[in-house]
């Protein structure tokens, strides 16, 4: 397994990309909590696959370009990245915010994609099924809501973040707010184009996801024909932290089939 961190320049924007492992290519799009939070999952996937893990525009170690205003900008930026690197046959895997970006990419172009895996994805709104909120509640309360097992949250909260980590958190929250404040974590124009995704699609969800309840998985399943759903038992929203093994094996099985 190789571990590389590389700054890639895409149309004047410096993007941080981690490139792990070898094998069929997975492009992993991280969630609200950033790429580092998924290291247990991506490390496990890198035992079987080559896993490319970019920091999104405006998050982690990637620049915040002045044009970054909507989730569409995020998607087009990744389409530019794939052109720059000339990468094909990608298995696109995205968690919450990353799932949303993956969907926005896929309704625009599936040319370079082999399959799409969504984990607890944002992007749509189901009337009458309230989502958890990221901004009205305190960060600690939000974190506690992400797990089925409260001990997982305690372990994270017991560690005091460094000044650098705090700054990254503020940077990430700014970008999430910029693209996802209103309507909350939703693109009202996404749902009507989901039929354009002509790919094998796998929807993975924690059974006790309190940020995006399981109804959202069912709604994606209804909206994307041929998609299939895997529900992870005793698992909250943050499956990559709570059940990294089970999540990795669900991803791996599906990716290997395609």
């Amino acid at each position, binding site marked *: 397994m190789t571990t590389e961190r590389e700054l890639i320049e895409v149309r004047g924007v410096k993007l941080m990309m981690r490139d792990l492992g070898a094998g069929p290519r997975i492009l992993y799009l991280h969630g609200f909590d950033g790429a580092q939070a998924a290291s247990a999952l991506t490390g496990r996937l890198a035992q079987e696959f080559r896993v490319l893990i970019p920091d999104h525009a405006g998050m982690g170690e990637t620049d915040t370009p002045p044009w970054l205003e909507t989730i569409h900008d995020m998607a087009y930026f990744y389409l530019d990245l794939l052109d720059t690197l000339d990468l094909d046959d990608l298995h696109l895997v995205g968690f919450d915010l990353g799932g949303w970006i993956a969907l926005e990419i896929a309704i625009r172009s599936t040319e370079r994609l082999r399959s799409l895996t969504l984990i607890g994805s944002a992007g749509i709104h189901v009337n009458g099924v309230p989502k958890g909120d990221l901004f009205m509640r305190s960060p600690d309360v939000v974190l506690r809501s992400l797990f089925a097992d409260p001990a997982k949250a305690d372990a994270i909260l017991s560690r005091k973040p460094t000044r650098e980590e705090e700054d990254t958190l503020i940077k990430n929250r700014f970008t999430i707010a*910029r693209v996802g404040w209103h309507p909350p974590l939703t693109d009202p124009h996404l749902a009507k184009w989901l039929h354009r995704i002509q790919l094998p699609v796998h929807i993975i969800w924690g059974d006790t996801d309190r940020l995006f309840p399981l109804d959202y998985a069912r709604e994606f399943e209804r909206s994307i024909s041929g998609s299939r759903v895997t529900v992870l038992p005793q698992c909250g929203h943050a499956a990559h932290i709570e059940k990294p093994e089970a999540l990795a094996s669900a991803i791996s099985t599906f990716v290997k089939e395609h």
Partner: protein
Amino acid sequence: MKFFYFHFMPYLHLDPQIRAEYDSCWMVLPNRAYDPKRGHELYNRYLDELELGELLGFDGLCLNEHHSTAYGMMPAPNLICAALARRTKRIKIAILGNATPLRDHPLMVAEELAMLDNIMGGRLICGFVRGIGVEYLVWGVNPTYSHERFHESQELIVRAWTATEPFAFEGKHYHVPWVNIWPRPYQEPHPPIWTPTNGSTETVEWAARTDHRYKYLQNLSAADACKRYMALYRDVAHRNGWEATPAHLGWGCPVYVAETDAIAEREMKPHIESFYNTFFRNPPHRFVPPGYMSLESMRRLAVDKIPVFGPQTLENLMKHGIVLCGSPKTVREQLAHNAKDWGFDTHMGAFHFGTLPHELTVKSLRLFAESVIPYLRDVNEPTVSQPEAEYQHQ
């Protein structure tokens, strides 16, 4: 000096038991805690208290705008201004509100304010604000665009006020192909624009632009922060090629005057503590949502705005110079000292705060009007040889 009188109009009949169930009286406190019958009494009591300001000789009244809170019952300050417009004849009314980034259309704001200025014959002052952080949560407005929308909406409003022929406005947030508002404002070129703030470098830079020269009002802040930001305003103005005078600066603080220092402290204490501890408080994540202010301003806020987050006492507020409290002599000495030391010509006294009852509000107002204002009239006023600086000429 000029003396303005500020009223927050709080809903002061909060049931302590209901209040104790919530971490703030903003956003989360359900409106079942509001009794409309008592609200009716309060609106009329507060309007009476404001109208008294004209009889007592104040130069102006200050209204503000806040949403989803018991802190103030004035989500629509233009309505309160309209209610006062015909009941007063001389006094200026400064609306420290119209949080334009929260509004869908700045032209509605431009039109309402122009109407008020016409009805009042040019007594209107417009203190545009961004709204506080939590208001971006309750209105669903993206706080990362707060500064952009604040700047662009004001640009549109000022152009709409001053243009005498239709024009096209091509902004990022507001794109209007044909702007031609009726009526135009009464004042030429337009009502004075003030910039009320809790203090931030961004706001100073905005107000002290050469083409703005907006009056900068530092509110509810520790004395050293007030002094520092007012000095910064002068420095920025100088850097921009013009010289700020006291006419460009104002200070806002809660005031309570009584017969002696001891009486004043005893009478102010429970009510100013209720203002800070019951009405004012917001948890940090709702006070400063993402993008509402720069990282640097966020870090500084924790230092300057001491009363925001922790429990407050009158003693601590006095120690930091955040409030004026005492006999007429004490208050006038402190106020004169601050005005000369910091260099402002306008004081905005919050004469009502928290649970302060009507009788004490009126007593303090009268003492201030009779035994403070007349002694300070000449402080920081331009002499004949130094004509008053024009702080808005466009």
